[in-house]
C-alpha cells in the first residue's frame, strides 16, 4: 500500500503552500483596506457610475498603469493593486506547487503544473 503514503517532502510542501495562501490574502487585504480608506476620504462624496458599463480607464487595467498609480498614491490604483496581489496569490501557489513537484523529481506533475502556470500567466499578461 506504499503508493497511498504521502512522503515527507509532500507534507512539507502542503505546509508551505497553506502559509503562502494565507499570507497572500492578508497582504492584499491590507493594501485594499489602505486604498479603500483613501478612496472614501477623497472621493466618498462622488456619485459613481456602475449601472452602465464603460470599462475601466487604461491606468486601472494594465499592470504597469496600476503600479504607477499606486506609487503616486492614487486611491483607485491602490485598491486595484491590492486586487492584483490577490489575483497573483493563486498564481504563486501554482508556482510553489511546481517547485514542490520538482523537488520530488516528479516530472509528470512538473509538466502538468507548468501548463496551469502558463495559462494563468497568459491570462494576466496576455494581450487579447
Amino acid at each position, binding site marked *: 500500500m506504499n*503508493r*497511498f503514503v*504521502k512522503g515527507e517532502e*509532500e507534507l512539507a510542501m*502542503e505546509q508551505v*503552500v*497553506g502559509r503562502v*495562501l*494565507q499570507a*497572500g*490574502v492578508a497582504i492584499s*487585504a491590507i493594501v*485594499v*483596506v489602505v*486604498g*479603500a480608506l483613501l*478612496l*472614501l476620504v477623497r472621493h*466618498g*462624496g*462622488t*456619485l*459613481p457610475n*456602475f*449601472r452602465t*458599463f*464603460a*470599462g*475601466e*480607464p487604461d491606468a*486601472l*487595467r*494594465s499592470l504597469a498603469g496600476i503600479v504607477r498609480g499606486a506609487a503616486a498614491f492614487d*486611491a*483607485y490604483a491602490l*485598491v*486595484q493593486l491590492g*486586487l*492584483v496581489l*490577490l*489575483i*497573483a*496569490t*493563486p*498564481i504563486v*501557489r*501554482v508556482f510553489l506547487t511546481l517547485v514542490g513537484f520538482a523537488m520530488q523529481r516528479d516530472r*509528470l*506533475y512538473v509538466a*502538468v*503544473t507548468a*501548463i*496551469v502556470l502558463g*495559462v*494563468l500567466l497568459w*491570462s*494576466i*499578461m*496576455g494581450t*487579447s
Partner: protein
Amino acid sequence: MTTLLFAVLVAVVSFAAGLLGSLTGLGGGLIVVPLLTVGFGVDIRYAIGASLVSIIATSSGAAAAFVREGFTNVRVGVLLEVATTVGALAGALVSSYISPRALAGLFGVTLLFTAWRSFQQHHDHPPAPESDPVAARLRLDSTYPTPTGMQPYTVHNVPAGFSIMFGAGILSALLGIGAGVVKVIAMDQAMRLPFKVSTTTSNFMIGVTAAASAGVYLRRGYIDPTVAFPVMLGVLGGALLGARLLTVVHPRKLRLVFTAVVVVMSIQMLYRAATGGA
C-alpha cells in the same frame, strides 16, 4: 447614491453573503452577482469582476487550512486545474459575445440547480480496492484523515471528471462564481473521491480557476475598484467569521435559509432574462 453609502451598503450585504456562504458551504459568490445587479443596479460585468475577486480571497483562505490538514488531493487538484483554467480562459474570452440577458438566464438556471443539489444527500462510496489504470498511471490514489486514522482511497473515471471540470471553468468565468457544486460533482460522483476530499480539493482549485478569468477581466476593464473593494472585504470578513462559527452553529437550518435566498435570486435573474429589463 454616493460612493461612501454604496460602499457601506454593499459591504454589509457582502458580509452577510460571505457568512451564509461559508456556513452552508455553498460559497458567497453565488449570491453576490444577483445582489449587486438586482439590488444595486450594478452592470453584470462589474458584478462578475467583483465577485471573482472575492472568490479568490475566500477560497485561498479556506484552502490554506484544508491543505495543511491533509484533506486536499494536490495531484488531483493540479491535474484538473488544467481543465478548469483552460475552461475559464475560454469562458472569459467568449463572454463579450454573450448578451447580459443571456448571462442572467444562465445564472438563474445555475442557481436553481445549486438549490436542488444542496438538498441531495451525499453518501461516501464503498471503498473500491481495484485501481483505475489511468488514475494509477497518474498516481492519483492517496489517503485522507478520518477519526480512525489515515484512510486510503482510489480514484476513477479521470476523463469524465476532466471534461466536467472544463465545463465548471467556463461556468465560473461566465458567471463570476466558484462553481464549487459542479466541481464537487466531477470529483465525488464521477471520480468517486471521498466527499470531504472532493469539497476541499474543489476549494483548492476555485482560486486558481477564478484567477484565470480575473486576469482577462482585469485587462478588459471589468474590475472596478469602487465596486470590488466593498465586495471583497465584506465577503472575506463574513467568510472568516463563518469559519469560526462553524463549530458553534448548526448549518442545517441555515442551509434552508440560504437555499431560499438562492431560489429567490434565481427567479429574479430568470425574470431579468425574460424581460431584458431591470
